[in-house]
């Protein structure tokens, strides 16, 4: 909000105050951008992996055979591991972290952040429980001890099935949370944000599970191929959704996504490194059965994860930029010339 920032913005491109004054109020943003820092895109990345790896583990558990046991095991542990930093990041981002529990004094259906908080609490219970069951199955609580026997007696399949609902919720609600704001880039694409965040979460979780299983080297080639097949499909959908987002935004609102440093991150980081390269490497292996060297699989998975993290950074930062651009807000809220207005 300090005007020093605006002064710099205005000076970029050699535009005078008079130039800016003709198109807007001296280029002053119409709306305020979200005050979020690095914690929020990092949470979007980790929370997405936590939710989506629970989804993969659960579906492999309920519908898959014994061959998928390593997938279930990796997914359950990964879910909890990615989940643990999430509330810490969210609390750190608060202006008053010591008041984090004020989130838990109300439940507001119309506020995606309130619903998200409660969804995260519920999912936390499922994720922890499933990881504990896995630990008991792996004998981490000893053989025949009280805790181990208790955990092994739990209906783990039913838990995995029920947990699918909060797991999908945690993977996708963040997109809805961004859509329900006045930020032009996010709200213009309100139907695409949730599906896009889901797709990104799933492809990241699949890449992370593939990475773990390949490095550990304890899974069948067939099982890995199934994961990779699904991953290529998800990444294809993700690429389509990204293209739809670009088209639907229009030139002014999409501007932060194709200009300057963010534009390079979008083209090279998200599209090239995160989607293009891994797809190119994995698709022949997954669909034609060509066996890839382990190193290549690991590399493709790493690239997908880097791309996923960059995507979360990009969508948040480009949103901030679109909030700072008065022309983007005016385009979103322009009066219709013919007098027929949205009521």
């Amino acid at each position: 909000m300090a005007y020093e920032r605006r002064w710099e913005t205005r000076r970029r491109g050699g535009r005078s105050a008079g130039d800016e004054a003709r198109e807007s109020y001296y280029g002053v943003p119409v709306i305020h951008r979200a005050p979020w820092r690095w914690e929020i895109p990092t949470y979007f990345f980790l929370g997405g992996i936590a939710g989506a790896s629970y989804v993969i583990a659960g579906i492999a558990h309920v519908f898959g055979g014994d061959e998928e046991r390593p997938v279930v095991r990796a997914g359950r542990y990964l879910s909890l591991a990615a989940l643990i930093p999430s509330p810490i990041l969210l609390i750190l981002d608060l202006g008053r972290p010591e008041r984090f529990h004020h989130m838990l004094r109300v439940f507001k259906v119309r506020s995606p952040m309130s619903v998200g908080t409660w969804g995260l609490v519920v999912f936390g219970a499922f994720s922890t429980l499933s990881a504990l069951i896995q630990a008991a199955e792996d004998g981490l609580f000893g053989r025949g001890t009280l805790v181990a026997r208790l955990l092994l007696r739990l209906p783990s399949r039913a838990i995995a099935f029920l947990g699918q609902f909060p797991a999908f919720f945690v993977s996708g609600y963040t997109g809805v949370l961004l859509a329900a704001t006045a930020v032009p880039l996010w709200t213009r694409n309100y139907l695409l944000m949730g599906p896009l965040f889901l797709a990104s979460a799933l492809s990241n979780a699949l890449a992370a599970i593939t990475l773990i299983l390949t490095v550990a080297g304890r899974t069948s080639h067939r099982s890995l191929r199934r994961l990779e097949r699904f991953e290529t499909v998800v990444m294809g959908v993700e690429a389509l959704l990204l293209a739809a987002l670009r088209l639907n935004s229009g030139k002014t609102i999409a501007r932060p996504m194709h200009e300057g440093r963010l534009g390079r991150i979008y083209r090279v980081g998200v599209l090239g490194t995160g989607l293009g390269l891994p797809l190119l490497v994995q698709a022949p292996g997954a669909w034609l059965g060509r066996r890839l060297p382990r190193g290549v699989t690991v590399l493709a998975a790493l690239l997908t994860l880097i791309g996923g993290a960059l995507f979360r950074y990009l969508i948040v930062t480009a949103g901030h930029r679109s909030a700072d651009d008065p022309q983007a807000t005016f385009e979103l809220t322009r009066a219709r010339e013919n007098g027929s207005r949205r009521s």
Partner: protein
Amino acid sequence: MSTTVIRDQPGRTGTTGARPGAVGFLTDTTLCIGCKACEVACKQWNQLPMDEFGFTGYSYDNTGDLSATTWRHVAFIERISDSEGRRPTTMRAFQSNWLMMSDVCKHCVNAGCMEACPTGAIIRTEFDTVVVQQDVCNGCGYCVPACPFGVIALDLGDGRARVGDHKAHKCTLCYDRLRDGLEPACAKACPTDSIQFGLVEDLMDRAKQRVADLRAQGVEEAHIYGDRAVGGTGGIEGLNAFFILTAPPEVYNLPAQPELPQRKTIPASVSTALAAVAFAVGAILSLRRK
């Protein structure tokens, strides 16, 4: 933005969804002389710290914008040229070629900040105003991008905001003064009655009369910003603090047809749920026992 045309909708102009008994502001920009008494009175009464001393280059506006510690902001628009780039040769009787507007929180009938707030810190008071409870706010910042007018902000202690309590702040419509039967400090201090305080229904009648008078005097662009036709659109249903403008809203840095952001929550959730079902089917087909 010069192409934006404000046309009245029959039966919608001057109508508001404000609840009976709601109080608010009518800010008549045609009476504003740009003295900034409202800014000063607001700062004094609410004990808000000063803005950083500096020069923006935005005409006489060195305040810049509404912020966590600036709850009234007088905008200065110099009409250097019209939309075709011509210099004006005639001068309006009432305001020369200046547009000045004292901006403030709109106290929306349906408020985006209030709906977004996950702690219940933002409430609607007995006066139908929107207020942040400072003992509840935990500074999550979700209300900030949820305001379609760029009003509410976190006091992050950087730049001009000197307190730095990291909580959300905005105009309270002087809740403490209302409790004691006083009008808000800005309205009290305004020397031209550009800022008027009262019941929204009374103010709206007054605004309609004023717009009719202005139009009779030849100011055809005069219109109400903040009824259901302009400004209070898209589920917002009206602003308890509304304005009389003589140019398109964008000239004053106001969105012409804003929307309540939470309107997107249900359709966005439905599309996400459908995508989730599709991905679940895909995962089952890929991972099922063969």
